[in-house]
């Protein structure tokens, strides 16, 4: 997806399997968006999207890069992981479908709601996955236009 001219960009590395630090990137993204003066609803949607995506990386992938770009009109988040990929994306987008382990479920995740919830909170959502290589999510959340550079 072409990105709008951004007033803020930052990259967040995420490590697969690192449950102890899972959520740190999403919390940091949330604080940054608040500081940029975005409205509470937009900040919440972006934080939920970032957290769900981050948890997916931690649970399933080896590593990923989350690229955040903010412009006056939108929050653009690209999450590109190196991991097993998703054999059937349509199935993975079905609410309740999950390949999570018992350990993931004990942590309160892996209910098969992550990808559908990302899509629900996004204005534009694209997913591209290749088995054996990884998955790329491209998400845009439109804002009310107010950003403090």
């Amino acid at each position, binding site marked *: 997806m072409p990105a709008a001219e951004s007033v803020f960009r930052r990259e967040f590395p995420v490590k697969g399997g690192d449950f102890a630090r899972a*959520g740190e990137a999403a919390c940091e993204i949330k604080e940054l968006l608040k500081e940029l003066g975005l409205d509470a609803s937009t900040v919440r949607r972006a934080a939920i999207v970032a957290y769900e995506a981050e948890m997916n990386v931690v649970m399933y992938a080896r590593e990923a890069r989350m690229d955040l770009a903010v412009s006056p009109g939108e929050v653009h988040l690209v999450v590109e992981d190196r991991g097993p990929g998703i054999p059937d994306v349509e199935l993975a987008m079905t609410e309740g479908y999950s390949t999570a382990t018992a350990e993931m479920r004990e942590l309160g995740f892996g209910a098969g709601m992550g990808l559908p919830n990302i899509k629900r909170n996004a204005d534009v959502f694209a997913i591209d996955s290749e088995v054996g290589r990884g998955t790329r999510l491209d998400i845009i959340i439109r804002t009310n236009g107010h950003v403090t550079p």
Partner: protein
Amino acid sequence: MIVLKDVLALLDGELLTPATDPEAAFRKVFASDLMSDVLTSAEPGSLLLTGLANAHVVCTCSVADLAGVVFVQGKRPAPDVVTEAGTKGIPLIATRMTMFETCARIAGRVQDGGHARR
């Protein structure tokens, strides 16, 4: 709407974050052990009732703008999780009551948990 001090009294609860305002009010209530459900369905400003007591509970509440947590059935988060919640201004309450008892008591005080079905 339910106020923190009333939650404590109803549940014979212990406030784990003593710096929290006892008059803090919660607009709605959501009960789940699944953080996936919290991220999907809980509304901002809600009080979360849960039997899960790990760091992801506080992180989830912070991300989704939930306003407080009740840990049921004697569950208690680790001290570093309590500290993190205090830093984020999220009150934590512990009760020995079961999830069912906790829900029943709070449901008697709030007319509507208020979460629309999806």
